[in-house]
């Protein structure tokens, strides 16, 4: 779109030749940064394969994937991961059952029903949910949710599939809500106007016109949410009980489960390097990566198909209308059966009958009511959905703030830990987190912005950019624990950095790189071509144009992406588990080759290993929450400011 040739190198202009050389060098640099994403994904895949293959060969692919028993440390070890795969799938499925209706309902509420003042208040609140670090969710789940489940359902233990799904559902909600809401608001007003003009109620407009029109965005939202749920480690590790069994019967949501990610999180830290157990864990990471890859690919496929069907590119739809109706009916029946089973599992046949009764009543009501009444009911439910989401946020925040405030003293913020963290403070952890984040951004920002510049400014869409983008998408969908595993095997062991600040910084940088690339690309794309053309027409070289005209204009968008990445890097635990952190350290690190303390890891260890540290736990969670929330708040403010001041 903006690929004009640089005509400043006429032969009669010697200065032009060196300018051209300079341009070529700069182009080369940006190409190199763009290739980093591809290179990284190849490196990660390669390493995982190299370390995981011995296990697959020894155990046999079939036994590995389809055997149920995972006991790698017993006298006769068994390496079957079927129960782990089933655990991951069940927990994700449950999370989607919770998150998709609530998420889309909230999105509809925010986009279509809420008055402007309410919308302005709710949107940042839901984005706040996105900013809460996963270890804080895990902590809340461990301390509050499992207990509540145990008491409410009269169980022996609250560490169950249901707890995992609830927490993952809450974690996937913000993604689903904001992306869906974006999709819904971008449906042109004419669609709404036309539908209403034909006499449809607002609800009929929403279900019949707007949602289908926004379908690709909503599908993207659901798939992104699913990716988030599948890749989550810390939260599931803390609430699902980690028993590697397949629930019996399959719909028993009150059974403990173990996911693939939790297995990595628990066992990598202590496994003997080079043993078969070690190789088996890498094979687990491969399976995880494969699942993430499948989701990514199907997302691209589905979105492509939806786009094709909507824009009439002439490709025949794979699903004709009758097939679609049948599929819808089958899905509905399946959902009903599964939910009935779930109710039966929780409260016996009485609950199941109640559920069936409710469905029957709904169908009956539908038959006898007018669209107006349906609309009122539907709006009521949608508002309730949003209310439930906000209520959850409130409960979590209230719990942490009320229990954590008493812990925040000057001593807590400025001293090191004593007595296993039960007294003293968390100052080295705060500084460690800051060091980690600064290092990660220092590495990821130049590479990410450089790659975005290359992709957007220097090339046409072709094979090369497709490869780079695919590599970037793959990196984006990779679970954070896989980054941790890669960082451990490659940076800590192979390169020999040892458990160090530097290893942690590089691992975090790799994790946030795809986000920075994507947001920078979006920012660069939003700069209109007319600016570039004007600059080039005045005789500037391409790099001159980019550095003086395009980049400053795209700066707010790039900065927002950077700040979001900072927030994510500050809150992540899994990439640090085996690469950078130590539990207690008196002195701050002198060099990047020493390990550090970090807030998320400190919270994790306090929550799971150290009894009698109640206030310190909550205090750490609160400090982490405040740190990450303020970062996200700054990003939000900047984005709003940029939207107001940048006018084309």
């Amino acid at each position, binding site marked *: 779109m903006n690929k004009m040739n640089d005509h400043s190198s006429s032969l009669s202009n010697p200065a032009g030749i060196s300018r051209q050389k300079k341009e070529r060098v700069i182009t080369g640099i940006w190409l190199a940064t763009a290739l980093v994403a591809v290179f990284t994904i190849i490196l990660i895949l390669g390493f995982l394969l190299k370390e995981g293959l011995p296990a697959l060969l020894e155990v046999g692919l079939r036994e590995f994937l389809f055997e149920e*028993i995972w*006991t790698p*440390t017993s*006298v006769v070890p068994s390496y079957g991961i079927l129960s782990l795969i089933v655990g991951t799938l069940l927990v994700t499925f449950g999370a989607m059952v919770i998150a998709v209706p609530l998420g889309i309902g909230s999105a509809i509420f925010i986009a279509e029903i809420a008055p402007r003042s309410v919308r302005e208040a709710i949107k940042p609140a839901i984005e706040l949910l996105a900013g809460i670090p996963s270890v804080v969710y895990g902590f809340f789940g461990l301390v509050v949710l*499992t*207990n509540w489940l*145990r008491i409410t359902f009269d169980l*022996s*233990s*609250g*560490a169950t599939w249901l707890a995992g799904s609830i927490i993952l559902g809450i974690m996937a909600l913000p993604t689903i809500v904001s992306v869906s809401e974006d999709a819904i608001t971008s449906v042109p007003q004419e669609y709404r106007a036309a539908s209403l003009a034909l006499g449809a109620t607002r609800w009929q407009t929403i279900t019949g016109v707007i949602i289908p029109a926004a379908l690709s965005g909503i599908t993207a939202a659901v798939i992104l949410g699913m990716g988030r749920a599948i890749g989550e480690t810390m939260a599931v590790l803390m609430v699902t*009980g*980690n*028993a590697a*069994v397949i629930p019996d019967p399959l719909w028993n949501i009150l059974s*403990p489960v173990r996911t693939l990610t939790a297995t990595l999180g*628990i*066992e990598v*830290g*202590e*496994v*003997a390097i080079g043993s078969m*157990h070690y190789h088996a864990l890498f094979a687990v990471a491969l399976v995880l990566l494969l699942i993430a890859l499948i989701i990514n690919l199907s997302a691209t496929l589905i979105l492509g198909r939806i786009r094709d069907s909507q824009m009439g590119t002439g490709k025949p739809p794979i699903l004709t209308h009758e097939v679609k109706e049948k599929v819808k009916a089958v899905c509905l029946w399946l959902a009903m059966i599964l939910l009935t089973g779930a109710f039966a599992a929780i409260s016996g046949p009485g609950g199941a009958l109640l559920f069936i009764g409710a469905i029957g009543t709904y169908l009956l009501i539908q038959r006898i009511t007018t669209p107006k009444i349906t609309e009122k009911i539907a709006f009521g439910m949608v508002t309730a959905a949003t209310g439930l989401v906000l209520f959850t946020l409130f409960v979590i925040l209230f719990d942490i703030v009320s229990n954590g405030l008493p812990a925040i003293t000057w001593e807590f913020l400025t001293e090191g830990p*004593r*007595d*296993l963290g039960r007294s003293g403070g968390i100052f080295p952890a705060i*500084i460690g987190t*800051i060091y980690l984040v600064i290092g990660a951004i220092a590495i990821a920002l130049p590479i990410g912005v450089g790659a975005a510049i290359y992709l957007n400014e220097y090339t046409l869409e072709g094979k090369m950019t497709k490869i780079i983008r695919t590599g970037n998408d793959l990196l984006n969908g990779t679970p954070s624990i896989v980054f941790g595993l890669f960082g451990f095997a490659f940076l800590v062991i192979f390169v020999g950095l*040892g*458990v160090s600040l530097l290893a942690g910084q590089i691992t975090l940088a790799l994790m946030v790189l795809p986000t920075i690339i994507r947001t920078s690309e979006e920012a660069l794309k939003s700069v209109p071509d007319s*600016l570039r053309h004007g600059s080039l027409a005045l005789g500037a070289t391409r790099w001159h144009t980019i550095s*003086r*005209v395009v980049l*400053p*204009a795209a700066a*707010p968008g790039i*900065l927002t992406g950077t*700040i979001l990445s900072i927030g994510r890097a500050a809150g992540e635990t899994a990439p640090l588990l085996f690469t950078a952190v*130590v*539990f*207690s*350290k*008196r*002195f*701050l690190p*002198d060099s990047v080759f020493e*390990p550090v303390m970090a807030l998320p890891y400190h919270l994790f*260890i306090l929550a*799971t*290993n*150290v*009894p*009698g540290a109640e206030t310190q736990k909550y205090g750490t969670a609160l400090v982490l929450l405040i740190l990450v929330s303020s970062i996200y708040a*700054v990003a939000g403010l*900047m984005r709003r*400011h*940029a939207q107001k*001041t940048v*006018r*084309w």
Partner: protein
Amino acid sequence: MTGSVNKPGFPLTYCVGAAVLLLAITLFVSGCVGNDSPEERRTISVTGSTTVLPVGQAAADAYMDIHLYDEILVSGGGSGGGIKAVGEGTADIGMASRDISANEKQQYPTLVEHVVAVDGIAVIVHPSNPVTTLTMDEIKAIYKGEISNWKDLGGQDRSIVPVGRDSASGTREFFYEAVMHKEEFVRTQQELNSNGAVKQTVAQTPDAIGYVGLGYLDNTVAAVTIDVNGKPVVPSIESVKNKSYPIARGLNMYTQGQPSGLVKDYLDFLMSAEGQRIVADQGFVPVQ
């Protein structure tokens, strides 16, 4: 387009300024906190068993209070991890709540063992559980899954929730040998990654049973009295000392070869009278 093309505008300068300020504050503050040390500051890392961790950490804290320029980093992760770390050289001392295995001895032949304390493993239940005494066979049967309801042991009609440790745990390994006699754990056992986690879970779960090092006992859990051939033995420092408690083991710290430098100073401190007093304070039995 308004004339704001070349001016970065408010967000950019603001943020760059904020970042520079943050960096400056961080560097300034870190300079103020204990980093102005002489050149020969010594650092060692101690890692491994979460059972030994409280002893290691408390001794390290006490040592560092006296010697202001030495740093001892202590972390958990399990006895398996500790032995591996000291064997591979990624840590200076490996803590283990079990003895080194034949396999490990083969892999790391130069490791030297130092027994720093003696510990019992207490079987714990929730304080509200009416079952307070069990035989070793009953405990084994529970963890094998053969007994799955408290009513079979004279308690309430509730399912038993067996809670155990993960695969790297020396506590688990010792329990596996001494109590299970190497028979397999039931698969629905919850696997937690530290003594603290087991204690916390049992304290929160009325139907749970778990096992932790003696030093982790407090009033949030109830220690089960072991019925040894008709004689009830309560897990305590005395019963471990006079060998009447059947589930007891030495707590070890392993070093690569004979210790020297800060490793030697630290271990000497731990084995001194003051160090052993710290051992006793943490709820373990001092080495004679």
